[in-house]
């Protein structure tokens, strides 16, 4: 996609007037659809469609050995796969750069123990722990990937159920674990602190959220702001432009405010979701 100068000016004026090309205001999101528990092989899953951006997240759990330097903690790993379905550019290893960028920012956002407490995943200190794989599949890219991914990840973790460990017996070097066979005997993860990422895009003198592809082209710089429980857990600057420190602060404030609203809306939605017999998935 390429925009000519006149089109760019049009977008810019729209942003100035707080009336964007698709009719939204500066701090409005495009419509989102969220569905949880749609991958039956996984311990938890979610699919989010934000306008044309489509993200599928599945959570898998394995038993592992804790890192020697952090014996009391479990492990959390993010893996992003950019499907070639989204664009032919992702064929082969073409999407790897983007994938690493997203998974790194997620890892950064979830790093603080205030955000996500890994000690809860420890089964036996230094010997056994749960390892959570959060696998993110990007199926379509319609702009604003970070926001969509973070929401989908949070929803998938919300949906995740960890099997209950009934007993652990240590016999020399052998460890026997008994996991509850009961299907409903499992614990939920505490994801209230799981961060929401908001991309704040600077266009002209104004900041907007959830930029469309055309708006992304008009922006010189953007900040990806991830907020957890009212605090910033990671901030990344993207795009090739630079910002004045004052503008930076304004962006942070906007992002903080929007993330808060988004978080509340998401939790409300997640509480409302009733487990349905038949998932709709892609058939709708």
């Amino acid at each position, binding site marked *: 996609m390429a925009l000519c100068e006149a089109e760019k000016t049009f977008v810019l004026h729209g942003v100035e007037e707080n009336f964007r090309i698709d009719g939204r205001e500066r701090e409005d999101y495009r419509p989102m659809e969220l569905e949880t528990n749609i991958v039956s092989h996984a311990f938890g899953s979610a699919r989010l469609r934000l306008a044309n951006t489509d993200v599928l997240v599945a959570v898998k759990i394995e038993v592992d050995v804790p890192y020697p330097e952090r014996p009391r903690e479990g492990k959390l790993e993010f893996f992003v796969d950019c499907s070639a379905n989204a664009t032919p550019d992702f064929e082969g290893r073409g999407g790897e750069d983007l994938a690493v960028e997203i998974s790194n920012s997620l890892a950064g956002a979830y*790093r603080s123990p205030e955000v996500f407490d890994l000690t809860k995943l420890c089964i036996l200190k230094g010997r056994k722990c749960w390892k959570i794989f959060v696998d993110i599949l990007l199926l379509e890219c319609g702009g604003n990937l970070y926001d969509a991914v973070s929401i989908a990840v949070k929803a998938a973790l919300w949906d995740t159920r960890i099997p209950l460990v009934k007993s652990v017996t240590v016999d020399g070097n052998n460890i026997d674990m008994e996991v509850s066979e009961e299907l409903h005997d499992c614990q939920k993860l505490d994801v209230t602190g799981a961060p929401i990422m908001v991309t704040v895009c600077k266009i002209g003198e104004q900041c907007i959220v959830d930029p469309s592809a055309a708006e992304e082209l008009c922006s010189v710089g953007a900040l990806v702001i991830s907020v957890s429980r009212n605090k910033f*857990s990671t901030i990344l600057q993207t795009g090739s432009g630079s910002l004045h420190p004052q503008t930076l602060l304004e962006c942070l404030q906007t992002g903080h405010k929007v993330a808060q609203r988004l978080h509340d809306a998401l939790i409300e939605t997640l509480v409302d979701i009733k487990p349905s017999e038949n998932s709709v998935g892609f058939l709708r």
Partner: protein
Amino acid sequence: MPIDHKRINGPEITIPYQLFDKLNTKSGKSQFKDFVKSNGVRIDGRSANDHRKIFLKTGVVSQAKGSAYIELDKTKVIVSVFNPREIPNKSEYSSKGEIYCEFKYAPFSCHKRRLHQQDPEELQYSAIMKQALESAVSRHEFPNFQVDIYALVLHNDGAALSAAITVAGVALAHAGIPMYDLITSVTLAVQGEFVLVDPNLEEERLCQVPLFKDEQNTNHGIVVLSMLATHEQVSQFYQTGNLAMDNLTSAIETLTNAAKDIVVLVKKCLVRHVIKSARNVED
């Protein structure tokens, strides 16, 4: 790990001996207290807003177009910059040149031995470096081409990323790559009430987790900021941890001031280089 056929491989499993040290039973909080006294004076005698001693030198790699070396006390980073070359795997015309950054830790530069391939952290730092430098370089002067910037950390004692960005800026200027502005970068570590400019590795590590939970202060984290000197623009901003809005507001102010402090050194170093080479021409 798969066998690397292009290197000599050691045994499959090796364990760092540091793991078998007598256990440090001190809590993180008292370790931190060892490093930073309550009046803000740090173990090496610096106050919270002080930089470590900085040593900058240009022209360390004769084969590169431009190069520079920085020491932030023990942290040592070397950067070289090369002439614009064709952008690999690209066939369309682009009116702006590109920047390629590679950030790498030497295998022996950290406490734990690093592998030869770039790990996710190094990839992310490479991306951050690129982001920081992109707005400093006049990319339209070399359309269709890319300038390669390679940073190698020889010794990591904290703030390696910001050291790499600062020194890359110097190397670019040394290489005669057209730039809009000089760039400097500073790291900040936050733990509770304490805000430490240019942290060393231990301070960085101790700021990864909140240590003052019992005092109802869960603020902690690392902030890196890069500034364009003359135009007062933030070209890159990166934060991890858990920080409140007002923390960040003051952090940005501290960082912008700290970044300005380094500009003087960068300027001095470059002026020295210009005068020296002018003398060489005369001789």
